C-alpha cells in the first residue's frame, strides 16, 4: 500500500518544479494517502486529549475517588494516597494540568498507559495486549462475513427488485437491522442454547477451552472458532440487514447509470457487468458506511462479550468499570477509540484503491 503514491495526474496541469519547502509539503499533503493518515493522527490526538481532560474534569474525578478509596481502605494519609494515585495514573500531582498533560502524552508515546489500580504491578498495556486481539478477531470476522454476505444479498435484491424475493429479503433485513444486536444475542442464547440445547452455553464461554494449549494447531484453531461462533453470529445478525439494504439501494442507483447501459450495449457478459461495472461502483458508498459500522460494532462488543463471557477488550472494559479500575478504563477506552480510527483509516485507504476519483480530489 505504501508504495502506491499517486500524484495528481490531471491532464492539463503540468506541475511547475519548485524547491520551496512549503510548496513541497503542500504537494505531499495533496497525496490522498498522506492526507488520510495525517487526519487519522489528528483524530487520535484529539481523542487522547479529550479523554485526558474528561477523566480529570468530570464530577467524581476518578483520581479523587481513588485517593479517597486508598485513605479509607488502606489507612493511608492523603499525601501517601495521592502520590500512589499519581504514579499509577502516570502524572505528577504537583504539576499544572498542562504539564501533567504533556507528561501523560510523553508516557503515551512510549506506549505506557499506566498501571492497573486493582491489580497493582500489572501494566494496562499488557492487559490490553492480552484482550484486544480477540476482539479484533471476532469483530473483524463478523464484519467480513456480514459485509460480503450482505453485499451479495443486496445485489440479488436489486437485480430482482420488486419481486417476491426482494420484498421478502427487504423485510428480513429491516427486521434484522431494527433489533439491537444484544437482543439477538439474548434470543439466540435462550432459544437455541437454553431451550433447544443446540449448543452448550457453558462450554462456549471464554475465547478458548481452558484445556487447550494455545498454538498454531488445527485443534486449537477449531476451538477458537467454536468459542468465537456466538459473538460472530450476533455481529453478523446485527449488521447484515444494514448492508443488504444499503447495497440494494446503491445497486439500484448504479443499475440506472449510463455506463451500465453502455456496457450492455457493448456486449459485455452479464457476469463482467455485474462484477466490474455494477458491483464495484455500487459497493463504493458501503465503504463510507464501513467506518460508522466499525465504531458501532466495537462499541456494542462490550455487551456482546459480556453476554457470552468472551474475554475480549469489551468485556475487559466492563470489568474495569465494575472494579472502578480507572487507569485500565481510561487505557481501554483510548485503545478502543484508536482501533476505530485505525479501522476507518484502513477503510478509507481501501476506498481510495477502489475509486480513482478520490485519490486526486480527496472528496468522496
Amino acid at each position, binding site marked *: 500500500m505504501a508504495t502506491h503514491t499517486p500524484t495528481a*495526474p*490531471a*491532464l492539463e496541469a503540468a506541475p511547475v518544479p519548485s524547491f520551496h519547502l512549503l510548496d513541497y509539503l503542500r504537494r505531499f499533503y495533496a497525496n490522498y494517502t498522506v492526507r488520510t493518515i495525517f487526519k487519522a493522527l489528528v483524530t487520535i490526538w484529539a481523542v487522547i486529549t479529550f479523554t485526558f481532560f474528561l477523566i480529570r474534569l468530570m464530577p467524581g474525578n476518578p483520581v479523587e475517588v481513588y485517593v479517597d478509596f486508598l485513605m479509607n481502605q488502606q489507612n493511608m494519609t492523603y499525601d501517601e494516597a495521592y502520590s500512589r494515585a499519581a504514579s499509577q495514573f502516570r502524572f505528577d500531582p504537583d504539576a499544572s494540568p498542562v504539564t501533567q498533560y504533556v507528561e501523560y502524552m510523553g508516557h503515551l508515546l512510549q506506549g505506557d498507559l499506566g498501571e492497573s489500580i486493582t491489580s497493582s504491578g500489572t501494566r494496562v498495556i499488557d492487559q490490553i495486549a492480552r484482550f484486544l486481539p480477540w476482539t479484533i478477531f471476532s469483530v473483524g470476522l463478523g464484519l467480513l462475513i456480514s459485509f460480503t454476505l450482505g453485499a451479495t444479498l443486496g445485489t440479488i435484491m436489486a437485480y430482482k427488485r420488486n419481486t417476491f424475493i426482494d420484498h421478502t429479503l427487504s423485510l428480513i433485513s429491516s427486521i434484522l437491522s431494527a433489533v439491537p444486536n444484544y437482543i439477538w444475542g439474548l434470543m439466540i442464547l435462550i432459544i437455541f442454547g437454553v431451550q433447544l440445547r443446540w449448543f452448550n452455553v457453558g462450554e462456549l464461554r471464554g475465547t478458548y477451552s481452558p484445556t487447550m494449549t494455545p498454538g498454531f494447531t488445527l485443534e486449537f484453531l477449531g476451538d477458537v472458532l467454536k468459542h468465537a461462533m456466538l459473538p460472530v453470529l450476533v455481529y453478523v445478525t446485527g449488521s447484515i440487514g444494514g448492508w443488504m439494504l444499503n447495497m440494494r439501494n446503491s445497486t439500484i442507483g448504479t443499475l440506472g*447509470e*449510463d*455506463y451500465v*447501459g*453502455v*456496457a*450492455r*450495449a*457493448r*456486449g*459485455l*457478459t452479464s457476469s*463482467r457487468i455485474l462484477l*466490474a*461495472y455494477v458491483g*464495484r*461502483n455500487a459497493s*463504493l458508498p458501503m465503504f463510507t458506511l464501513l467506518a460508522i459500522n466499525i465504531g458501532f460494532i466495537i462499541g456494542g462488543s462490550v455487551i456482546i462479550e459480556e453476554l457470552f463471557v468472551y474475554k475480549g477488550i469489551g468485556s475487559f472494559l466492563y470489568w474495569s468499570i465494575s472494579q472502578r479500575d480507572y487507569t485500565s478504563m481510561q487505557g481501554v477506552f483510548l485503545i478502543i477509540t484508536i482501533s476505530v480510527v485505525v479501522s476507518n483509516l484502513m477503510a478509507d485507504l481501501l476506498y481510495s484503491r*477502489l*475509486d*480513482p*476519483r478520490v485519490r486526486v480530489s480527496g472528496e468522496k
Partner: protein
Amino acid sequence: MIGAVKPTIVENTMKNDVILQVQDLSIVYQTPRGDVMATTDVSFDLRKGETMALIGESGSGKTTLSLSFIRMLPNSARVTKGKILYSRDGVTRDILEMSDNEIRRFRWSDCAMVFQGAQNAFNPVLRVRQQFADTAAAHGKTDKAWIKQRTLELFKLVRLDPERVYEAYPHEMSGGMRQRSLLALGVLLDPQIVILDEPTTALDILTQRAIIDVLKEMQQRLNFSIIFISHDLALAAEMASRVATVYAGEIVEEGSVEDIFYRHRHPYTLGLIRSVPRLSRQQDELMSIPGEPPNLITPPSGCKFHPRCMFASDKCKVDPPPLVEYEPGHRAACWHTDKVAAARIAFAAQD
C-alpha cells in the same frame, strides 16, 4: 459460443447493399395508464456506408426505434409486430429472433450505439484502456498487442493524444474528450452500423464541430453506416444522405437529403423545416407547428397529424394515409402532398 445453435437464416429478400431492413415494426410501452404506441408500422432500409438521419419532435419515438435495433428497450416495452432483418457477409438474420448470447455478440461488433445524453458512458473506476480491452474481450479478441495498437490508432483517428488518454481514468477527461473516446470505442470492433442518438447535444459548438468532422472522417475510412438522430436539422442535413421524418411513432416521410429539405411532401416535415430560424429569414416569419404532440396511448384517428395540420380535410380524420413513393426513394404519407408542394413553393418565393 454455443456451437449447436443453428442460425435461422431468413430467406434473403434484401438487395445486395442493404444491411438493415425494418419491416412493419410496432413497439408499445406497457404503462399503468395504458399502452404507449411508441413505434407503429415502421419500415425502412439502411444501406451499407450510408447515413440515415431521423428527425422529429421530442417524444416522437426516435430513441425507441433505434434501441430496438440492439434490443435494448426497457422491460416495459413490447415489440408487437414486425421484423428487423440484419445482413452480414451474405447471411441475413432477424435481430428479434436472436438468442441472448447471439444478441450480446451482435451488440457493438455489428451495431454500436452512442446513447442520448450519456454523459457517463465510461465506468468511473476503470481506466479507459481497460474498457476498450473489456469490449474486445467480450467479443473474443484477447490479443493484447492487437488491442493496444488498435486502441492507440483509434485515439489518433478521433484526434486525441493517444499516450495521454490511454492510461487515463474517465474523470480525468473533459466531456468532449470522453465523447471522442466513446466514438473511438464505438468503431473498435469494426461494426457495420453505428447509431448516434444526439451525440453532440451536451457539447459546446466548437467541440460539436470537431466531433462531426471526426465522425465524417471515420466513416470515410471505415465505411460503416450511421443512424443519426438529431434535433439540429442543419447538422442532420450535413451528415446524412437519407432522412426520415418521424411523427407519433410513424415514419411519415423518407427520402434523400434533397428530397426532404427541398422537395418535402409532408406538412409535418414542412413545419419542422420552417420552424428553424435562418439568417435570411425574418423572425416573425418563423412558423411553429400549432398544438401539442399527440397522446400516444389514444392517438388521433386517421392521419395522426390531422389535428395540427393546416391542410387537414375530413378524409384525413378517418383514413390513415399510406406511405406512397412519389419519386424513386422518396416516400410520404399524406393525402394532400400537392397542397404541401404548393405551400413549399410559395414559402420559398417569400424567402
